[in-house]
């Protein structure tokens, strides 16, 4: 059964589906505040999005976020099903 994610988390997955990015880029593309990004990343399981950096609002911009290629299809299906 597909997992349920918040709209913010789905926007993060959508942005990371394009390419790995730093937190600032994700916030800008997904239209999120640092707090929202931190909360979205905490909601997404670690095997879905790789987070390199600290998950605190002050530092999340410098974090590097990756959606591994082996889960990209699954993430895309989650995003599509929510659209």
């Amino acid at each position, binding site marked *: 059964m597909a997992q349920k994610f918040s709209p913010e988390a789905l926007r993060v997955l959508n942005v990371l589906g394009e*390419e790995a990015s730093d937190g600032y880029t994700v916030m800008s593309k997904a239209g999120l505040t640092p707090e929202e990004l931190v909360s979205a990343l905490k909601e997404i399981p670690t095997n879905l999005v*790789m987070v390199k950096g600290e998950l605190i609002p002050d530092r999340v911009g410098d974090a*590097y976020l990756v959606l*591994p290629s082996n889960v990209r299809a699954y993430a895309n299906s989650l995003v599509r099903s929510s659209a």
Partner: protein
Amino acid sequence: MPSSPDIPAYYSYLIVALVGGVVARSTVNDGLAAYPDRWSFFAAWQLFLAYSALPVLLFWFLDYSSVIQDTSLFAAVLVAAGYQTIFAGGIQGITLPGESAGLWKPFQAWVARINDRIATKQKAYLDRFVRKLELKISSDSELLDKLLKVVMEHLQGATAKPQGAAKPEVPAKSVESLQTTEQLQAAFNATSPEAHLQRFRLLWRAFRTAEPINYGYILYRESLISPFRYWWQFRQGLADVITYGLLSIGVAIVLVFYVESSFPAYVLDRFVFGSASGATWTQASGDSVMRYYQWRLRKLNASDKDTFRSHEYVKFMAAYAGKCDGLAAFDHLMSPVIEDLCFSGEPSKKVDDDLGLIISTHSPVINAKTIPRLIQCLWTDDADNRLRIHQTLMALQQADYPKSLSQTEAGAFKSWVPGKDEKPGDVAIWVRNWSGWWASAQASQKASCFSAPSANSKP
């Protein structure tokens, strides 16, 4: 694949390597699609090399286990393009023996680790860039003021226009969270003028929030970073350096291999241009060429056509055995092939092929190298093969030394039929008899490698 064209094995392996390389490039691009500058990581090249080597190793293994033949063109293309499907057991007729398909799982786990390592490295690269910029700007108050000016300009731009200008799908929510220029100026002024590092970090966060994507170009345009740093960090300079560096190393290795080894020149002359003149025999006798044909001659599951090609090569080399270096080359080529005949488990078809080849290339000069080895191989535990070797010695005796045995002696040799229950002592007698004959036959012939190439050994 019986309906496939049979091609020399070096072409098959070349096809597997080239097609496998293209597939590997595409696999790495897919697997690391998340990283725009993936080729700037050695780990990505490691993956590329592993994915390139995998089909070659699999092709060799499938041939070794007789699932396919390494001279089959279709098998080469199929393995190179579809090796991942083969591991998954998705190609009918090509099934990996035993549990070998299980090797794919650790490989995939390694690929996942590489993926993780690249993400860590990417983060480290970004951090290193920021730390260097931090050191440079925070130690120079003029640069710090310049950065403040740049941030103010871009903060104004970011707050004044809907951010969607560059990214239309994005709501303006992130703009709301940005500091205004006044807030930033106030925060900047509130920080002690001596606290350069804190001031830089404050500006940097605001700048990155205002310009999350184009910050590199703006830093370069405002001369806050050098053109080299901009190219290196933001124009994939590192990826270019690594790509072209590795390509240059690859080309250099190929060139060294070409110059050092006679194999490529031999393949070009003999099979591409179709010339196999006497001028090319020295190329043909090159170490790598010989090692290749030794491999083909000693292979137990070679195709008939491949065996034919190898025999043609042996005959070609035999034609030059009249020269001393030609004889040495021929001996170097054939000695491991003949030594295989001593092995008790050597299949009878293979023994027949090898002995037939020895008979078809016979000459007094060549016999000087082959007969002593054949006599020693009479010690083999396989009585059938011992009989075959004995019959070959008889054939060589009749062809090149017809007067070396009296009728009685010839009759005695002919009467020996090696049996399974033969005792080592009986074999020793016949080895001694053949050795004695060979000593007298050789003394009477006085064949040397200075004589002209024999007519019957031309290819």
